[in-house]
């Protein structure tokens, strides 16, 4: 681009500034989890791994992590199946209402979680007999579909549909075509979508609040409930650091896998 050196320099400075703004808070959370102080103190008086050990043996945290992992795994499976099928329909076919379907897929993450949350809560408690583990999975799967659709659609759009047509013309059934042609090409994008769906579900709190059955605690719910208890603060800090790592690692992997600008919520 035709830009004066000054303009370039200013843009670079602004970019560095914004990236600092993005990363400093996360770094503070990570650093805080190693703080030697039992109460909040800045700067940390010293660094220790002690709270990580305490947190690792904390019953509440362990149960919460386990619940989060189970919910995220199941929600991811549902999202991958539904999202893959939907992306093939959305990319390979022209049909009436296609834009509306695209919008419907995005809506669960574009509208505030609290709206989705109490809407689902109304359905589950009013008509389907109350909240359980399953209702939590359903709630999460609903907003995870979009990331799978976006990752799969991006890949499908770049690969030509003619290979699939050739396969069908040569007599392969839709299943065989999927197994031998489409799936191998989509695999990376699907894995990336699945990782992102997992990350999205693992740290969600708002829809979780309204759809989790009684007694169920995911890691974010545990953090929220212990946030205002001063004596729990070192463990909350560790749990927070874990959430940062668990969500950032899948995104890093997804990026390597898909080769697109993964992490895309939008097309």
């Amino acid at each position, binding site marked *: 681009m035709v830009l004066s050196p000054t303009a370039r320099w200013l843009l670079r400075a602004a970019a560095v500034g914004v990236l600092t703004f993005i990363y400093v808070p996360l770094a503070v959370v990570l650093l805080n989890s190693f703080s030697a102080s039992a109460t909040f103190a800045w700067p940390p008086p010293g660094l220790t791994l002690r709270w990580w050990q305490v947190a690792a043996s904390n019953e509440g945290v362990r149960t919460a992590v386990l619940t989060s992992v189970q919910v995220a795994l199941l929600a991811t499976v549902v999202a991958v199946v539904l999202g893959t099928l939907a992306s093939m329909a959305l990319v390979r076919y022209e049909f009436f209402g296609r834009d509306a379907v695209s919008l*419907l897929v995005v809506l669960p993450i574009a509208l505030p979680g609290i709206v989705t949350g109490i809407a689902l809560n109304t359905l589950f408690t009013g008509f389907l007999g109350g909240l359980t583990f399953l209702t939590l999975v359903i709630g999460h799967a609903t907003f995870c579909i979009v990331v799978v659709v976006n990752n799969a659609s991006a890949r499908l759009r770049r690969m030509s549909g003619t290979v699939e047509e050739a396969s069908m013309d040569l007599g392969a059934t839709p299943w065989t075509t999927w197994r031998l042609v489409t799936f191998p090409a989509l695999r990376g994008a699907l894995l990336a979508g699945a990782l992102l769906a997992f990350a999205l579900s693992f740290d969600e709190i708002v829809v979780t609040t309204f759809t989790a059955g009684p007694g169920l605690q995911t890691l974010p719910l545990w953090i929220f409930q212990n946030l205002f208890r001063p004596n729990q603060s070192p463990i909350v800090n560790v749990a927070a650091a874990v*959430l940062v790592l668990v969500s950032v690692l899948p995104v890093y992997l997804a990026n390597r896998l898909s080769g697109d600008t993964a992490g895309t919520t*939008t097309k």
Partner: protein
Amino acid sequence: MTTVRTRGTVAPSGRRVAALLHRAPRLRLAGLLAPALLWLVLLYLVPLGLLLATAFFDTDSFTGRITYEFTTENVVDVLTTPAYLLTVARTVGVAVGVTLLCVLLALPLAVYTALVSRRPGLLVALVLTPLWASYLVKVYAWRILLAPEGPLGGASPGYGWFAVIVTLTYLWLPYMVLPLHAGLTSMRGSYLEAAADLGARPWTAFRTVVLPVLAPAVAAGSVFTFSLSLGDYITVQLVGGTGQMLGNLVYQNFSTDLPFAAAVAVLPLIVMAAYLLTIRRTGALDRL
């Protein structure tokens, strides 16, 4: 089935289905689309409709149970009580502030990543990765940062509306960077060179070439920054001091007076519906 299957051949009945699917692309389409569509309609649109309907029901003040009789009481209540209207105005104000701040921060960053940087992929990944970090932890991070005894110390503005706007901006910023970057990337190189070759100064080129691409991108990003700010209630609880937004009203009333909570929750929906209809003309919705 007794037929032995080998790669590429199928049992007779399977072949019939396959042949049918091959001849009827519409049927294939229906099969692909139906699962997700059914899921989203039954488990998303229907509940939203129920929520909308609940807003027009009443609660028995004695038992606290919902009475299924049509009344506009709750909706009228929300829209005429000054205290609630103030909350609506404040919430919309916060959402507008967050959206503007997001544009202000995302624009130079996106211009840099899309048009100047030699490694745009890496930079975009750097911006997007934190998008996936836990929402709760990010708010918690700002609670630490802005604490009176925290890293900013005396320079901290403290908890309050400013803190809410900064924190929400932090949360939704990647949603704005991404469409801006995507829009600007589409004109990397040739467009601007053409403008320059035709004698346009950088500013003219920006105004006549870049801006028309930016407008729908900003609109697409603002759907997220605006909508997600409208419904937030956790950020206000953690860094908002005593402030309240629409989401807090919903959260506080939802277990005791669901129809009222539903009536409040419908407000962000109405605002968003109006907003989506307004920006539809810019073509922004194709970019979501």
